[in-house]
């Protein structure tokens, strides 16, 4: 017996006779504990993605089958106007939603950070939409944006009879109603994250900059906001996750309509896979969407992950 195992024996578990076994068990335990999650991730995330990919090359319609047809589903998909609309809608939606929510959230956080009275109450009001289901948000905004009973009617009642706000039923504008509702839902969340970040900024840095004669605007723009880079990263990730999930919002607010003018890839996939019995086309759309997201997300996640690890 060498000195190393002797030491381990006395340190680990003096009362157990077989210290070699317990020691080995201890070193295996972390892996053992993690293994169900590893298995689940491999099967239910990565395995299922591969399975979907396989189905996208088959003739599957109402039920999955495995008659391979090569790229036929993808060709069909890209020939569809409906798919083009869904994709351009997603880009419009994601850019506007993430951009506006981050800018608005930052502004609100900076404003709230000026020693405001009733800060707690205002913060609570800004953040509560995050607690709501997108279905509830969609139902509420569907009512507010409805020209017959919502804002348009309100303005008419107030005497502004030429006021028109028909985005909900206007095919050219319907996707922007989704942006309005989504921004309403998530800006408070960005505000809360930013405010938390602002509170974490070292006050002495700000004082030093003030002594140097820098204006408050400059201090925020040049010093404080750059410090909060990791928070912008988290906000971006959470917002893109919400953007992917906005399936619910579209369904409750516009149901993809009028026509398919506010369709997103998620609603497209749902329609084709589960309602229209075109599993092949539906899974092909899912795979394209996935590749689009991975192309953006993985390099970003990877660089941030490495960055924080080596920091």
């Amino acid at each position, binding site marked *: 017996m060498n000195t190393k195992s002797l030491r381990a024996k006395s340190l680990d578990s003096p009362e157990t006779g077989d210290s070699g076994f317990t020691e080995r068990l201890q070193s295996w335990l972390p892996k053992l504990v993690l293994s169900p999650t590893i298995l689940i991730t491999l099967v239910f995330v990565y395995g299922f993605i591969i399975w979907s990919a396989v189905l996208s090359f088959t003739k599957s319609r109402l039920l999955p089958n495995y008659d391979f047809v090569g790229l036929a589903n993808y060709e069909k998909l890209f020939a569809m106007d409906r798919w083009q609309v869904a994709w351009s809608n997603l880009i419009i939606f994601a850019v506007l939603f993430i951009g506006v929510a981050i800018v608005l959230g930052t502004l609100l956080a900076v404003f709230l950070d000026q020693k405001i009275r009733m800060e707690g109450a205002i913060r609570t009001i800004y953040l509560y939409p995050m607690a709501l289901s997108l279905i509830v948000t969609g139902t509420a905004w569907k009512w507010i944006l409805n020209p017959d009973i919502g804002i348009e009617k309100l303005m008419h009642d107030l005497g502004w009879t030429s006021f028109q706000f028909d985005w909900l039923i206007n095919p050219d504008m319907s996707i922007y109603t989704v942006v309005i509702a989504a921004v309403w839902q998530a800006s408070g969340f960005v505000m809360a994250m930013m405010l938390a970040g602002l509170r974490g900024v070292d006050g002495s840095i700000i004082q030093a900059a003030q002594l140097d004669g820098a204006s408050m605007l400059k201090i925020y723009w040049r010093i404080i906001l750059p410090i909060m880079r990791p928070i912008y990263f988290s906000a971006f990730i959470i917002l893109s996750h919400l953007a992917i999930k906005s399936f619910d919002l579209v369904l409750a607010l516009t149901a993809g309509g009028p026509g398919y003018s506010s369709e997103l890839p*998620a609603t497209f996939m749902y329609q084709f896979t589960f309602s229209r019995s075109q599993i092949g086309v539906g899974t092909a759309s899912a795979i394209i969407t996935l590749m689009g997201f991975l192309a953006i997300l993985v390099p970003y996640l990877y660089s941030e992950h490495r960055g924080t690890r080596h920091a």
Partner: protein
Amino acid sequence: MPDTSLNLNRLFSRGLLYLVLLTFAAYFLMPLLVMLFASFKDLSEIRAGNLVMPPLDPTLEPWRKAWSEACTGIECNGIKGYFWNSFVITIPAVILSSAIGAINGYVLSKWRFKGSELFFFCLLVGCFIPFQAVLLPMAQTLGWMGISNSVVGLILVHTIYGIPFTTLFYRNYYVGLPTELISAAKLDGAGFFTTFWRIVLPLSGPIIVVTLIWQFTNIWNDFLFGVIYSGPDSKPVTVALNNLVNTSTGVKEYNVDMAAAIIAALPTIIVYVVSGKYFLRGLMAGAVKG
């Protein structure tokens, strides 16, 4: 005098600041107020008035109807049954995913091994994939397991796809715990589980609250899994609400829709109001550190 002009300037900018902040408060509150007002009006008042007008003759009838009479498709039993379904689905899934996430986070922060960082990265990607890519295989798998269209199936799905998030939360929180704590415990002869129970878990209060709130909110509010994997008797309340709003038979009862929407939102609003402080505190403690 320069001094007073400075003060006036300051007063003006403070006033403007409050004006902006309160305007946004009104903007965020408006939809909830509008829903509340509508839910206490009867239909004729809704048609006659407008959305920002408080109910003149408040009635509880829309609430009663939404709870026990409104049609969600072909059935007309209100949303009460689906409301309880949501609890039956949400509570086990929240507890399971949060517990598994805690032990995973502990391993990935304090017991790293070769490949554990790579696995964490793979898991992170799993957080953010569009669920479309797994929906159909999941439906098939649930079928094979004999739990499609059931509450058990939904609990399983929510647990599985919740684990990446809960793991991320705990892992980021535990990374911040001093490693010396763990090494000291090891020196004292504490093993893997003892250290977790005696040292790590008692320090996990804030992150447990955060994770529970996050998971409860997410699973309660879920619609995608609910609409695809539930059967007639296992629909969550979000799906029932959407069906109720889109049921097109007869007169459109906006007041009942709004009452149902508030009922569906109530549990998460209560959780938020009661523990919003923890939500924010937890945000600072854990999730923010990327």
